[in-house]
């Protein structure tokens, strides 16, 4: 690890890395994945919470036997959580790790 030293007008190693095209595109890739995904599951969850609170009649419609729309909606929250988890893990393992690792090696080897 490089010693950052006193701050000042002199650019540090980390700032040089931060400015590099490789890092900028890595950060873009990360944010482009996690921010929309976060917005998606939060909206989806809040929709569920709001419907359970204010749309009792809709949520009480029987789909089959004693199974209500509300129960199906709730179980879909489990499904969506499992799906997002799997999508993220797959994306991070396949698309993100290698690039982050390459940058890390360059930084720790003092090449950037």
């Amino acid at each position: 690890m490089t010693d950052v030293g006193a701050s000042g007008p002199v650019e540090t190693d980390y700032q040089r890395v931060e400015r590099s095209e490789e890092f900028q595109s890595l950060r873009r890739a990360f944010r482009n994945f996690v921010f929309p995904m976060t917005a998606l599951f939060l909206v989806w969850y809040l929709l569920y919470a709001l419907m359970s609170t204010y749309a009792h009649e809709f949520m009480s419609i029987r789909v089959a036997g004693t199974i209500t729309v509300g129960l199906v909606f709730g179980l879909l929250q489990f499904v969506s959580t499992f799906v997002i988890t799997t999508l993220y893990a797959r994306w991070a393992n396949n698309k993100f790790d290698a690039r982050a690792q390459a940058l890390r090696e360059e930084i720790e080897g003092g090449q950037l």
Partner: protein
Amino acid sequence: MAAAATNVGNTWINIGIFGAFVVVTLIVVFRVSRQNKSAADFYAGGRSFTGTQNGTAIAGDYLSAASFLGIAGAIAVNGYDGFLYSIGFLVAWLVALLLVAELLRNTGKFTMADVLSFRLKQRPIRMAAALSTLAVVFFYLLAQMAGAGGLVALLLGITDQAGQGLVIAVVGALMILYVLVGGMKGTTWVQIIKATLLIAGAGAMTIWVLALHGFNLSAVMQEAVNMSGDKGEAILEPGLQYGASALSQLDFLSLALALVLGTAGLPHVLMRFYTVPSAKEARKSVVVAIWLIGIFYLFTLVLGYGAGALVGPEAILAAPGGQNSAAPLLAFELGGEILLGIIAAVAFATILAVVAGLTITAAASFSHDIYASIIKKGQVSADGEVRVARWTVVVIGVIAILGGIFANGQNIAFLVALAFCVAASANLPTIIYSLFWKRFNTSGALWSIYGGLISTVVLIIFSPVVSGKPADPVTGLSKSMISNPAIDFHFFPLDNPGIVTIPLAFVLGIVGTFLSKERSHPEKYAEMEVRSLTGAGAEKAVSH
């Protein structure tokens, strides 16, 4: 012996199975802790756990008695509304997975404050983060220990206060022993063993309940409807618990917000991410935890309706533990004394494991943030820091025991929701801002942490959970913590303040940032950002 009439199961079987759990975990704790030398060993288990092990431990830490006994009981009695809880508890993990776990692992060492103080002023920020950590831990701890008293009454048939106090003291002393001897490594193994037993036990009961009803969930629910008396089909629909008025509906939304945003700010959850060697393993931990926790909550759905169907809400509410006794009574109904003994032992183990995790978090926060960084200004050896941490464990253990005895039988179930609310208001905004917002500064963090913490605690004190709920027509007692209906100083209408305090803390972080003339540190932010995403310079595992 009026109490014995409602008490089920064989006390000696319960104690025997719990005793076996204690012996096995103690052997494991002693075996794994021979190499506990450094601070990284004590606080972070040498960072040597695999993602799968840590994920299981996270599940063990997270599935507290409140979520096991509480959710199953809430579903058994109130049906659908009990299910709402578990969904918030689960979805919350996506915040941890996507935004927090890996970045935190890459930039921190032992505590939440390590990450925050990366580019903010060390001493004030560590103080604020440590105080909010201690507050969350204290509320959570008290709730667990107070619950222990009720559990003792239910499972061991001990109904007098002195006897229950003794059992609480024994549980507390055991916990201190685990943490002192085992540090984070021992605590983690206790949580792994407990999570395995809990999920296996709940899974076996779930299959059993479904098998009795031809593997048809709808049939289980139909049976629960038949048993539910005048509630009838209402247990299939939302509204029994929260639908009474516009105010209680708002209260539920407030709770939902605190649950989904609180988890990723719980200090004992955050600390678990430091026990693995890399960000990749931290990611895997959360993935494993999400699967285990999600599957477990699906089990509780079946167990809750199953308890409603096979035991019935009347018998559940008449039992010594009230709603919390749904899962144990179902176990007795299905598998008699032996299965009840196993579930009872798992419930005790749950309290033990969760309290141990909380205690080591508080000890790390006090010793690493307050003692080493603020009082000693970093001029202290790692050995000295760990020694203080060990003493802190003892002090917190004693506080937990005394708190548990004092709060025994008190109506303090709201404390868990309060802990989530403090975590969501005081911790999460600052963590998110400091990881993602370049302009963020110390002043913004202090405004957000103290603003979130103080507003939550003040609004709770002046809410109906503390005073002023209408008196019960039968007993003449209020359902508030202060049960005398004549004492009423509440002015905030909601039980859960999250809907006010969480947005407030996010706004305060922005306001505080812009009001300060503090020079920004682009070079520190650059270092943090690069390290958080690439893992450069991250703490490595201890090799023995």
